């Protein structure tokens, strides 16, 4: 993606999905054809099945090792959306005699919030905690929301829109003191960006996604702590695979891809985080120079690869339309209809509708370069200057020329 002439927009949307790492793709390809491990991993009566089954178990071990879990804790699913559904609905159904109350946060992913809404329709009660302006939830507020009939607390580790890291370890400690409460952590955005220690932290359940970490789409996992005796009611029946929690023939190539992707992500975590943090700082400095650029989320508690900003005096849809041919980024508004809806995550942080609509999420990744970052800054600068001029707004400070950037760690807005 480097070079003087760009044929494709710079890809800065790695929080949406990542390309499959070629090393992962090579391992996956070994499982597809007649010469490869194409057998049904559940067929124990012949070598084809045994070979595939061994690969699945090796991948399970890779996933478990990457997140600090036991091999037997890993239940493969079609992705984090299914894992979130299984965690919320499965726990709620299994423990319904103990209580019908859940605690979660307004800024969770839709794949977590929508199952909660479904449970509310079925008579459960859900407490939706409001984060502070930085997007963080105080563990004491979680504790205060717990009731004698609370059976599940669900808090995401890394927010997919703003990159803010919740203190899930502290929340795990307070949940551990209440034996009737299970803690689920959505860690779809965490692998390869933040260290995870499922068993050590005392989580009960954790959702994972392969395609956010250079693995294939269509596979993920729900990690279920056997040591802590967590039980679930499955959402599907038939076949008994994955301990009866997720029946259906496992897609060996997908599972193998996820295992390989997670192993690679773990091996390169620290140097990748350092490199990407430098790129994000370069990006922030370039954007801040435009003037009227506000960082969304608590910068001191954010992952390195996500930068979410709101830009004053520009309209969100025009901003995205303008930069769209140069860079691939996400907008802070959902295009559910012709009229865009501002991000509910940014609204929960207290951003007004206009600023929520005029936000952009940049998410850097393994193949991001300084050239990509510079292209993004140039595209946004061009768009913002043009749109502000059309709106009759005075131009902000010039993005050109050397200036002192207020680092993300120093900013106070």
């Amino acid at each position, binding site marked *: 993606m480097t070079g003087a002439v760009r044929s494709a927009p710079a890809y800065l949307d790695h929080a949406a999905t990542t390309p499959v790492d070629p090393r992962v793709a090579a391992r996956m390809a070994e499982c597809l054809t007649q010469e490869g491990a194409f057998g049904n991993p559940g067929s124990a009566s012949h070598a084809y099945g045994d070979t595939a089954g061994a690969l699945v178990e090796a991948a399970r071990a890779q996933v478990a090792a990457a997140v600090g879990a036991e091999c037997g804790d890993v239940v493969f699913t079609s992705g984090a959306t299914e894992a979130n559904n299984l965690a919320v609905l499965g726990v709620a159904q299994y423990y319904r005699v103990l209580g019908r109350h859940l605690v979660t946060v307004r800024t969770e992913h839709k794949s977590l919030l929508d199952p909660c809404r479904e449970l509310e329709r079925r008579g459960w009660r859900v407490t939706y905690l409001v984060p502070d302006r930085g997007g963080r939830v105080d563990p004491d507020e979680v504790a205060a929301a717990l009731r004698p009939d609370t059976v599940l607390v669900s808090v995401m580790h890394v927010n997919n829109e703003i990159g803010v890291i919740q203190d899930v370890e502290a929340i795990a400690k307070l949940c551990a003191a209440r034996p009737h409460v299970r803690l689920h952590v959505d860690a779809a955005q965490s692998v390869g960006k933040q260290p995870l220690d499922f068993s050590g932290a005392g989580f009960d359940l954790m959702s994972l996604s392969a395609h956010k970490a250079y693995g294939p789409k269509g596979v993920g996992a729900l990690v279920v702590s056997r040591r802590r005796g967590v039980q679930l009611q499955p959402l599907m029946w038939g076949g008994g695979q994955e301990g009866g929690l997720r029946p259906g023939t496992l897609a060996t190539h997908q599972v193998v891809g996820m295992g390989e992707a997670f192993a690679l992500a773990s091996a390169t975590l620290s140097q990748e985080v350092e490199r990407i943090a430098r790129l994000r700082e370069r990006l922030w400095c370039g954007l801040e120079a435009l003037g009227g650029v506000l960082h969304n989320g608590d910068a001191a508690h954010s992952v390195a690869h996500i930068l979410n900003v709101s830009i004053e005096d520009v309209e969100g*849809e025009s901003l995205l339309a303008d930069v769209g041919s140069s860079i691939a980024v996400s907008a802070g508004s959902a295009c559910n209809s*012709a*009229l865009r809806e501002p991000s509910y995550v940014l609204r929960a942080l207290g951003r007004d*509708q206009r600023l929520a609509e005029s936000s952009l999420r940049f998410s850097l990744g393994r193949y991001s370069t300084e050239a990509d970052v510079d292209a993004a800054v140039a595209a946004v600068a061009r768009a913002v200057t043009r749109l502000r001029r*059309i709106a009759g707004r005075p131009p902000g400070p010039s993005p050109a020329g050397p200036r002192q950037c207020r680092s993300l760690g120093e900013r106070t807005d």
Partner: protein
Amino acid sequence: MHYNNLTQRHFEHPHCAGELSGAAVRRGAAGSPAQGAWVQFDVDIDPRDPGRKVRAARFLAFGCPHVIAAADWVAQAAAGREATPSLPESVQSLRERFDVPIEKTGRLLVIEDAWIAAVSPPCGD
């Protein structure tokens, strides 16, 4: 969102974006950024022409690509025409010309209101 070629062209190259000055220039605006669309027209009307011909029109706009494109087209199309409170063509025709989703019709009405505000004779005229 998909934009048709005309929208794309006027959004990317709004030749009539800007302001006019002079005694013969009338200004009108409508909407607000908080509502999602704000448009201002400056219309230069020849004072010696009994037909109130528009010599030039310029616009400023805060809004989506459809708003910017349609406002630019209106400013361009108005030049040489009589300065009447009617747009060069109806809101419905503008909607069809720019392939504006029905949910956004209100934003085209902001353009119409801004135009009316600019060309309507002030009280006492």
